[in-house]
């Protein structure tokens, strides 16, 4: 009988204790973050989407070589002498037209290995993490700043320059051969 | 035809149709559920007769008690037991004769009786009178019934416990 009354009392008492706790929680500010409107602040070193600052890129291809999953593809075209590509923010002279800089972010494993070898610190991880797409192809980010026409132009320029150089070389070689033929004993340096 | 007539025919139709389903349905669960509508319709008819307390008792005892028990029984035993529950029609001719005679008897009584009808609105509540009558005039029967129910309750409990020990 005594146990019975104790049970009854405990049942009511414990329910009241529980209700008190939940009642208190009514006034605790909510921990919900309303996600698309409000975002949780990210820590400084987060690794999310890759970004390439093309102004600084010298097209050295080191990041592509460092990538363990081969998600970076770089194609470059050498600049021809009269063109001035300017300098990077760190003062390095740029010598290559970067005609293609594709990062397939779907393949990316966010290892950050491409970031370390970059001599100009132009490739880095950003804190943006929402980049879902409907098409898988849309996940290939094209960072190259040149338009296809420009690319063609640069390529043509380079080929022309190359051809000119070849021609010059050939002419020089021919001249040299001729000179050699003319004055064999002198050892002239070109 | 006033409102009460409509309500009467509604409940009468409900009672008769669902009773027909009870009798003719081959599915025993359907029959049991139709019985519920029959009982409910009868309770509605009680209300129209001015017997409000009886009507509510009809619902609470028949639908809330007996019918639920019946349904439990049907549902729990329907496919467990090997007993075949026959739901077909047998011995049609003798039954037709008996129901015909009985029906004729009922109809003749119905037409022979002089029904006294009172307007159904503002019927006095039967509650007070019923309670007084039960506890004064019929108190012995009332107490005996109480005893009977108690005995039935104890008996049921003892039967239920015996199996476990």
């Amino acid at each position: 009988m005594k146990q019975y009354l104790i049970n009854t009392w405990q049942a009511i008492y414990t329910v009241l204790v529980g209700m008190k706790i939940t009642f208190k929680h009514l006034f605790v500010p909510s921990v919900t973050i309303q996600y698309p409107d409000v975002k949780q602040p990210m820590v400084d070193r987060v690794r999310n989407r890759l970004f390439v600052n093309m102004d600084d890129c010298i097209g050295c291809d080191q990041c592509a070589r460092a990538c363990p999953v081969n998600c970076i593809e770089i194609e470059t075209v050498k600049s021809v002498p009269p063109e001035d590509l300017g300098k990077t923010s760190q003062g390095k002279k740029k010598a290559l037209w970067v005609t293609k800089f594709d990062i397939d972010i779907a393949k990316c494993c966010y290892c950050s290995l491409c970031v370390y070898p970059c001599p100009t610190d132009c490739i880095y991880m950003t804190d943006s993490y929402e980049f879902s797409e409907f098409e898988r192809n849309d996940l290939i980010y094209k960072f190259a700043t040149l338009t296809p026409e420009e690319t063609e132009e640069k390529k043509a320029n380079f080929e022309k320059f190359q051809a000119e150089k070849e021609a010059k070389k050939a002419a020089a070689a021919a001249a040299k051969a001729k000179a050699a033929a003319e004055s064999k004993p002198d050892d002239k340096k070109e | 035809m006033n409102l009460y007539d409509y309500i009467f025919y509604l409940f009468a139709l409900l009672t008769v149709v669902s009773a027909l389903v009870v009798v003719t349905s081959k599915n025993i669960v359907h029959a049991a559920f139709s019985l519920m509508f029959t009982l409910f319709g009868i309770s509605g008819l009680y209300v129209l007769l001015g017997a409000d307390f009886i009507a509510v008792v009809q619902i609470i005892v028949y639908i809330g008690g007996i019918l639920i028990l019946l349904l439990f029984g049907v549902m729990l035993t329907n496919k467990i037991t090997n007993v075949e529950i026959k739901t077909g029609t047998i011995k049609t001719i003798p039954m037709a004769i008996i129901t015909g005679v009985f029906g004729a008897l009922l109809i003749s009584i119905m037409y022979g009786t002089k029904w006294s009808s009172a307007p159904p609105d503002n019927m006095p509540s039967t509650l007070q009178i019923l309670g007084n009558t039960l506890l004064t005039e019929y108190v012995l029967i009332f107490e005996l019934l109480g005893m009977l129910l108690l005995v039935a309750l104890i008996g049921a409990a003892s039967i239920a416990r015996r199996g476990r020990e």
Partner: protein
Amino acid sequence: MYEILTDIIGNQIVAYVIAAALPLFVFILPFALVAVLAERKVSAFMQDRLGPMRTGPYGLLQTVADILKLIQKEDIVASDTDKKLFNLAPILVFAGSYAAFAAIPFTSAYIGSSADVGIFFIIAISSLVVAGILMAGWASNNKYSLLGSMRSVAQIISYEIPAALVILTMVMLTGTLSLSEMTEMQTQYFWNWNIFGGAETGIVKILLIPFMLVGFIIFYISSLAEVNRTPFDIPEAESELVAGYHTEYSGMKFAMFFLAEYANMFAVSAIVVALFFGGYHSPFGYLGNAIGIDWLIPVEQLFWFTVKGTFFVIVQMWLRWTLPRLRVDQLMNVCWKYLIPYAFVNLIIVGILTLL
């Protein structure tokens, strides 16, 4: 009410139909809309969340959107169900819980049926819900549904006993079965409410208070069980039975079960209010009386009734998000070993006190 409507419309039958449908459209549907939202918001706040915030300002239109979704949803009837019973069950369940509103006095001006059997009728008609739940469980032809409905019915029938015993206590105290008469006896100020000893006077009134409190707690616990709310929600225990007897239902049929559940929640709260907390009466007298506007009184009464009823619904939600679910044997223990003996003792003591 009927007379006024008959005068306006001219046709008695139409007036009756409108008067009967009034609580549904004026009260239950809006209440269910608000209560579903409140349920989600209360649960959210108790768990330090925000709850629905997207639909409308502060998510206020969430339930409206939900209803629209439910209306548009495909009505799936699984191939092996018992089609007739499957379609009938939600109607039966809703009819049962709606019929209970006929005997609940919303204000002194509106009561569905002022029949003397009031509260007794409510107990009786809720057995239609029981039958409907059994029907749904059986017709679904699904183990979980059948188990859920069996549990539900066993639970409702068991907990009807302590509830009926407490109602009997209150009937003995007030001497009437009619809820509106019971309410009228608790008029004027809050110390006339039954929980504070009702209309009794002197020492008896003070002696009655603890027993009224016991009666109230017993009735509230058993009413929780009768509407299948946590901690007594084993009929629809999500972790064990998917959703109990309405597992197979979708679209509007599911919505009817849902509506019936919320209607039931309010119905039992309304009964608690009418039995113990003065029904539609204001705790501190009426403004309408003070400034002499007669028609204001029923409006105030409706307001107080809604406030009190909603308060007990909120307490139901509060309990839901506080307590874990009981096991079946614990459920039956609570009912048969604790509530019923206490209710009996309470009945006897209150009976003696009333005779004093």
